[in-house]
């Protein structure tokens, strides 16, 4: 893996960001109503709208607005929210931080649960354990987050059970246990769905790896089952799993939007939904960009990890 390769990927990352920003900007331009409409709401009159649009700069041609936005971005200025008048960057990064925390916990849970289960299923292929794992994963990948989240909410927060607080968010820096407690339900929801994904992947990759010639060769050298499984099969099946994990970050982002909405978790997903509803252009742009960028970055990191782990792959 050369430095040049990393540079190249970073360049692509920037291209991605540009395309996404242009796209999102384009979309916000053709929205049937703009922020001024939403800001004034039922109090909007034609003259008030014009005045406010002027004030917000919404009356300028699209390319001027885009250029203004991009040049601001390059100077690290994401603009001000049209809705609250607060700086976008602060709001977005604060929300992103919380979402990443949510995602990180979910991913940790997934890695701890999904990989061993996937391995067991692959090794015991066709046996009861495999059947069980497959069943769970089929249900997991087929149950939309919002159904799962709603059912968890009904069952786990009911007064007589009250296992978890229904929602709210306590910064983990403020009170660690309480923070964990509050984040538990969204994390569980995300983790269940993701675990199913990753488990499936590990199972099938592992099953493939177990069929590989080098695994047969290792077995025929009389190596112990554990060595064959872990040093040979798992090691190789982890490579595609890393890619899937990175792709699942995209899924995670989608899931986060729903889960945050339901559990009232003040993350980037909810910020985005609210911003879309409110036509808060700078916020939509920044939010979508940040999400896309996170996703692209996680894919890049996965690819780099892949290259690092699998010496066969030589990018140039």
């Amino acid at each position, binding site marked *: 893996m050369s430095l040049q390769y990393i540079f190249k990927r970073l360049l692509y990352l920037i*291209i*991605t960001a540009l395309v996404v920003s242009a796209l999102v900007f384009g979309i916000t331009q053709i929205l049937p109503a703009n922020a001024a409409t939403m800001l004034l709401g039922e109090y909007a009159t034609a003259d008030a709208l014009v005045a406010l649009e002027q004030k917000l700069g919404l009356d300028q041609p699209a390319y001027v607005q885009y250029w203004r936005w991009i040049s601001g971005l390059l100077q690290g200025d994401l603009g001000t929210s049209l809705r609250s008048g607060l700086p976008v960057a602060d709001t977005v990064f604060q929300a992103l931080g919380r979402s990443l925390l949510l995602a990180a916990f979910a991913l940790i849970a997934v890695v701890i649960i999904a990989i061993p289960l996937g391995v067991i299923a692959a090794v015991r292929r066709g046996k009861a354990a495999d059947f069980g794992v497959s069943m769970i994963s089929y249900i997991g990948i087929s149950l939309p987050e919002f*159904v799962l989240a709603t059912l968890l909410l009904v069952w786990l927060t009911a007064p007589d059970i009250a296992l978890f607080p229904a929602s709210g968010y306590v910064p983990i820096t403020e009170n660690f246990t309480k923070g964990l407690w509050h984040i538990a339900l969204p994390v569980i929801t995300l983790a269940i769905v993701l675990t199913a994904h990753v488990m499936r992947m590990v199972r099938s990759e592992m099953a493939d790896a177990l069929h590989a010639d080098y695994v047969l060769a290792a077995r025929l050298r009389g190596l112990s089952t554990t060595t064959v499984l872990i040093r040979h099969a798992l090691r190789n099946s982890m490579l595609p799993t890393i890619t899937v994990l990175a792709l699942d970050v995209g899924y995670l982002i989608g899931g986060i939007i729903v889960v945050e909405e339901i559990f009232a978790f003040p993350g980037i997903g909810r910020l985005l939904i609210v911003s879309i509803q409110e036509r808060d252009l700078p916020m939509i742009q920044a939010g*979508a960009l940040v999400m896309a960028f996170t996703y*692209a970055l996680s894919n890049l990191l996965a690819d780099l990890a892949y290259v690092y782990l699998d010496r066969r792959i030589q990018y140039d």
Partner: protein
Amino acid sequence: MCISIGVFNMTDFMSRLLRQPHGVVGLILLVVLAIEVILGPALAPYDPETFHYSSRLVGPTPEFLLGTDQFGRDILSRLLWGARTTVLLSLFATLIGAGIGGAIGILSGYLGGRIDEVIMRLVDALMAIPSLLFALLIITVLGPSGTNAVVAIGIAFSPGMARIARSVTLSVRTSDYVAAAVARGESPLWIMSREIAPNMLAPVIIEATIRVAFAIMLLATLSFLGLGSQPPAPEWGLMISEARAFMFRNAWTIVWPGLSIAMVAITFNLLGDALRDALNPKND
């Protein structure tokens, strides 16, 4: 990840499919689903939109087998009617995605070079937007409705489909029968449509089948967020969304449509996996 361009033979294919337990279960579920889609309205005991003033939010009873919702509408009838919308819309969404993505992918992969590079950078960039987010943005422009949700999901799916179509095109393109066609001077259109496209079917169908499951969930999620089908349509995601306010009074209003969505998604996931295995020559 590579999907082979195996040969396609219907009887042989069915027997391969039926050799796998998940294929069998998937097919059975598919038949049940097909019955629901085709005969659902005929089987429904009530009109899905009729209010039963005196029986709001009741649990399962002999009169209302799965109970009623907040308007006293029969949940079973709504599910049976809704199957058509929910399933067909998801299929359409996937078809749109496969169609657009397939066309882009085949073109990009075939033309190659600079055009391919540009298209793929764009596709990569679009793929960096998670499907739900993408669909959300598109819906925001188009306005919330079932049809628009379908279009949005279709568009949101197309970059992924384009990637797959392109990678298959690239591998098919290097195959000797395409080389033979090029060498004998066939037109690009003929090569794309007759030499390459038929060989993309298997991997695209596999991907599309799994995507249907995904589309169902995405569609339901959009409806849940109020961006998909609109009331009083008996769309399953929307049913859950509407019922959420009443979930503590009658949890069945959520459980049934939730189960239905999961069932359909499971069906297509099972079928997709079974297809993948059936069309994979490694499993011979």
